[in-house]
């Protein structure tokens, strides 16, 4: 190894060093989002008074919570949407009333599932995934095309609770979020 070869090697290595000085933080910066997985797993919230929920009629309610968007923190933002269906008739006492809750986030590609009043089913405006009022996928034969959703609507824990201070009955939902496009229900942070 003579002097010139050594100088050539040194040039390349030094250049490499300067490059690494920038490339390492650069890559780390871009890939950082892959590591940052904060947020809570589930949010329990009283969404509606039982008396505001007519039996048998699906009602969509927002889930409101604190949201962090990179550098901005929102105190009260809609972070989710839920469909409520009161199964029990109006004369059933509140402590025995049954209410079902479904996440309105479509399991296909996370659009918001709407309600098709005419056909009495849930329908997603993005790619027409459809579900009956119990959240089950409508089969392709009824739909006329393959149902894009990989699974049924995600059911959420829902209870009717009593507020002693006000003597009022509330519908309480445990809001969770699940991965879009997956066949199994994989929880993600809310």
């Amino acid at each position: 190894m003579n002097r010139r070869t050594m100088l050539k090697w040194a040039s390349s290595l030094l250049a490499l060093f300067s490059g690494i000085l920038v490339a390492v933080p650069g890559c780390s910066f871009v890939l950082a989002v892959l590591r940052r997985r904060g947020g809570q797993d589930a949010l329990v919230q009283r969404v509606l008074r039982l008396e505001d929920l007519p039996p048998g009629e699906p009602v969509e309610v927002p889930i409101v919570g604190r949201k962090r968007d990179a550098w901005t923190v929102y105190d009260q933002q809609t972070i989710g949407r839920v469909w409520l269906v009161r199964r029990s008739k109006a004369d059933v006492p509140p402590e025995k009333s049954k209410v079902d809750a479904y996440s309105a986030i479509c399991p296909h590609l996370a659009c918001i599932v709407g309600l098709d009043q005419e056909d009495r089913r849930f329908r997603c405006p993005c790619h027409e995934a459809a579900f009956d009022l119990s959240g089950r996928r409508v089969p392709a034969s009824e739909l006329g095309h393959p149902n894009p959703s990989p699974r049924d609507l995600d059911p959420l824990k829902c209870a009717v609770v009593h507020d002693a201070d006000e003597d009022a009955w509330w519908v309480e939902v445990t809001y969770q979020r699940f991965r879009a496009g997956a066949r199994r229900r994989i929880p993600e942070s809310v």
Partner: protein
Amino acid sequence: MLEKLRESLERRIAYRQWWNAYRQRTVPGGAAWTRASASCLLWTLVVLVVTGVFLMSSYSPSMTDSWASVHYIEQSWAGSLLRGIHYFAAQFLIVLFFLHMMRVLIVGGYRAPRELIWITGLLLVPLVLAWAITGNPLSGSQKGMSQIEVEGHIIASTPLLGRTIQTILIGGDRVGNLTLTHLYTLHVFILPLLVGVLLFLHISQIYRHGLLGPENSDESEAVPYWPDQTVRNMIVLAVVMIGIALAARWLKAPRDVPASPELPGMPRPEWYFLSLFELRRYFSGEWEFIATLVIPLLILGLLLVMPLLDRWLTHRISVFLRSGIVVVGLVAWGGLTAMPIWRDRHDEQYQQTHRKLEVLGERAWVLADRYGVPPEGAAALLARDPKTQGPVLFKLYCGSCHPHAEPDGTGIMPTEPTAPNLYGIGTPDWIAGFLDPERITGPHYFGNTAKADGEMVGTVQEWFENAESDDDRARIRKQLQEIALLLAHEANKAPQTVDDKLLARAKQAMVDEFACTDCHRFGEEGELGSAPDLTGYASRSWLIEMIRNPNAERFYPDDANDRMPAFAPHEFGSAQNQLTRRQIELIVDWLRQEWYEPAPESAESQ
């Protein structure tokens, strides 16, 4: 003198070799209009970059500022035109791109030694489409953000690296600030850089190999490119530019509703992706990536290997294959694009949502014109607008009992109304309904409530039963009309024509003739506790307090309250209240029809 200047410049920067490279270009077979597609494409791209740089000087990529900065840009005729040119030039670019590609395919311009021109050109296809995908959400519109949300999930559904790429692209779990900054970086730097590099290679290869002659030969008579072909290029470009400018001036770039989690999604891709949107429909679940990724890549791959393929095919088969690709491609693309358009046009729910978002977009624009955008972002404009939020909140919290039905029957109607119709609350006609024996027992007032046979109803009926003649009844009606005006005056909803004499007369009638103040408090007359306070009746503060707690002594204490809940009986801010101060204010302002409306445009203004 000029000659000396030129010599001196030439000596320093040697410009003549570059100028000569252009001057020496030839067009075999003579200048042709169809050859203008390439130049037109290039200069449309330059227009996009230049307008883009101008827009950059005023645009801010964040969830709170993007829509606001776009609204700001649109305030001047120059900004609006620049944005319009940028938007329509992008649409034109995509059309021109594919026309140019088809032309080159048909004439066989991909053959040796021009393969690299073809390949660099084809590699530009995904880049230009990525340019469009990254550009659309930058407006901060609900449409744009829905698009990138869905597109992100489509990327995530690609097996193996899909989810990783999606997370890096949108900057985390959810679309948000980082998504916009990432898209912006791609859109204004990384993609232009890559396109620039490929274009440089593309064009230097064209200069190196020259233009392809007709009939697949390079030996036809070569006419100088400059100025014959150049002038045709410039004419076509001028026509395209006029088209773009007209579209920018009259159609305008989209003014969509700002992105907000409260709004329904409006998830349709741009027109150039509708064919893939439709194709995706025929694949279920985890196989969708075949439609969105595999098939486009296969088509791209087929085109990429055309130079290779062509070597083994006879001339006739090659022409057949190429024409076939173009024809089949156009028909398939056209059909697949037309189907979702046709289907959406006949989808009532889609049309309704589309119209609703259009209306909201116009409303947001009008509010931004008037109030500017608050620091929380444009979504807050609609969130604080009584006209927008009133009906939503009313439907959710009041609408299971109270109708808000307009005289023509439209509006909010519960399946089982059990409370008065609040449409027009505080207006003279609405109040007059309580003072009319037929209306007060009707479905719009107490008819469906426990008060249908209560004291108020009885009292009103008595007035008319005790009347001795038609004249008497007419007098009573006139007096009650004036009382209604007086109470509407309390609500600040009486017409301007109401004078003090009428008010005094009506008050006299209330106290003496009809004995209202025997039960109702009104000013200094009467007491609270047996009937709602008529002081400030249906005014903004009266309604706010009523909704907060109808059980208060001022309204319907003890058993007088039929069944209306107290929506905020505790201090505002308490978590035990069902509604916040702002929510109640939105409902009240909406009920009182007090929201901002722009003055009707009398003169033409943009």
